[in-house]
């Protein structure tokens, strides 16, 4: 296990930020961290990096305990903080050389050059950090995070505030650099979770409310009714549809699309098709409701 967390608790005054949470993250796993703001994502991440100490609990990174061996942990973890703090009046190279110095890297300038190329900063490398756009700052942040070839990469909302192109690029960068690393990252963008993660942990009010692979997340919000959406070219009384065996309810939603509820989505679609055939109607589109992380998220974290 790369990261092992056991019974982690953290309080600020009366407020319980983390309430006895435990999870393990395996080698080269990409873990998505979800939860509403204030759920404890950032706190958990900071604790894993050794920047913050928990009240109680056990945290190990690659077998090293954050209490006993914090320097070893820091040498194995790369952490990109939420607002990506950087020394804005330093030049990119100067800053990266400084970070290389902290890690005690032998051939500093070669390593910095390698990272500048890897993160696509070559054109901007002679600029000051405060002259960079948000996307490039994020790259500088990633470059300094990758300085020590971390085994565990922790990224706190790495894609907030980026434009769609930058978003794509940063995601690709995360995916390519994260191939042989354990990656834990938090985000509010659900598509990102579906695109990048193997596994998802949803936190709410300091507790883990879901911890599973993306495709089995649906089990956390068991709903008996399944929905099928169908669009016909012809207009007709939708009550005709309710007469079908498998359909319990039919509601017209916008643009002529009808939402059908029933228990068996497979049977519902089959029957709708034969219904159209016998009445000589044309089906323009038909789809069933997919597992929707966004839905699951709001259901699990709703008070």
């Amino acid at each position, binding site marked *: 296990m790369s990261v092992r967390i056991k019974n982690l608790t953290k309080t600020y005054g009366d407020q319980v930020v983390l309430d006895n949470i435990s999870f393990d993250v395996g080698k080269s796993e990409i873990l998505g961290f979800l939860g509403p703001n204030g759920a404890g994502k950032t706190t958990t991440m900071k604790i894993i990096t050794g920047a913050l*100490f928990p009240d109680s609990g056990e945290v190990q990174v690659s077998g090293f305990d954050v209490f006993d061996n914090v320097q070893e942990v*820091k040498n194995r973890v790369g*952490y990109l903080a939420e607002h990506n*703090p950087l020394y804005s009046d330093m030049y990119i190279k100067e800053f990266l050389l*400084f970070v290389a*110095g*902290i890690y005690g890297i032998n051939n500093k300038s070669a390593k910095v050059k390698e990272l500048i190329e890897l993160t696509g900063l070559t054109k901007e490398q002679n600029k000051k950090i405060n002259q960079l756009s948000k996307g490039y700052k994020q790259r500088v942040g990633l470059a300094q995070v990758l300085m020590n070839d971390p085994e565990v990469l922790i990224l706190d909302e790495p894609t907030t505030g980026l434009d769609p192109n930058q978003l794509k690029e940063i995601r690709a960068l995360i995916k390519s650099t994260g191939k042989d690393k354990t990656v834990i990252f938090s985000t509010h963008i659900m598509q990102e979770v579906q695109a990048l993660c193997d596994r998802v942990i949803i936190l709410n009010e300091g507790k883990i409310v879901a911890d599973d692979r993306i495709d089995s997340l649906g089990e956390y919000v068991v709903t008996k009714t399944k929905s099928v959406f169908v669009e016909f070219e012809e207009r007709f009384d939708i009550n005709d549809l309710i007469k079908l065996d498998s359909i319990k309810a039919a509601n017209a939603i916008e643009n002529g699309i009808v939402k059908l509820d029933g228990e068996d989505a497979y049977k519902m679609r089959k029957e709708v098709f034969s219904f159209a055939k016998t009445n000589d109607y044309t089906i323009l589109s038909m789809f069933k409701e997919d597992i929707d992380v966004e839905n699951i998220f709001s259901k699990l974290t709703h008070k």
Partner: protein
Amino acid sequence: MFSIYKKELSTFFGSLIGYIVIGVFLIFTGLVMWVFADTSVLEYSYASMDSLFFLAPTMFLFLIPAITMKSFAEESNNGTLELLFTKPVSENEIVLGKFFANLTLVLFAVLPTLVYFYSIYQLGAPKGNIDTGAVTGSYIGLMFLAAVFVAIGLFSSVLTNNQVIAFVIAIFISFFVHWGFDYISKIPAFYGIWDDFIQKFGIDYHYRSMSRGLFDSRDVMYFVSLIIVFLLLTNFILKKKKY
């Protein structure tokens, strides 16, 4: 620690801070020693650097808090302190790196004043008629005093995220530690009984003692322990930020 030291120094000289502090210090001490009629060595006609060593602590009282105020306040405000916390440097290294970098900047401001010493040495009648021992002692005392002010400045800066507050607190503590005990000792209730004892708590007493050219290990011990106390306090508060 060296990485932090280097980074701090390069921020001083990468921005105007370093040059302005050195410039202001040299212009002001230069004017007082050579130009202003009231304090000029040339008018005074005694070969001594007393006016420099009298003026320097007052200048440091304002200049040193001005350079130390950003040390932790700014970093904590920008979140870069958190960046350092996730890197393999200990709090001790951060504090010491910053301490020595700030002290180095002060040293760079003080070093050019050796030219004044050389000038007075040459101008003396007969040549070299200056109490070199006293000057050496004064320089050492001045650097110790600067080191205490730097340690106080770092401590004030770690207390708050606001640089202005850090600046004001640093001036207050520095002033109190330097002159405060002297003033307290003059309160009639203490005068004549406790005054000597109380004075010994202040920097001024030990600074003056060193200025005479006496190298007393008690003075050195006093300065060193004061520096260590403030650095330890800084370290303690820095560590507390992680809980």
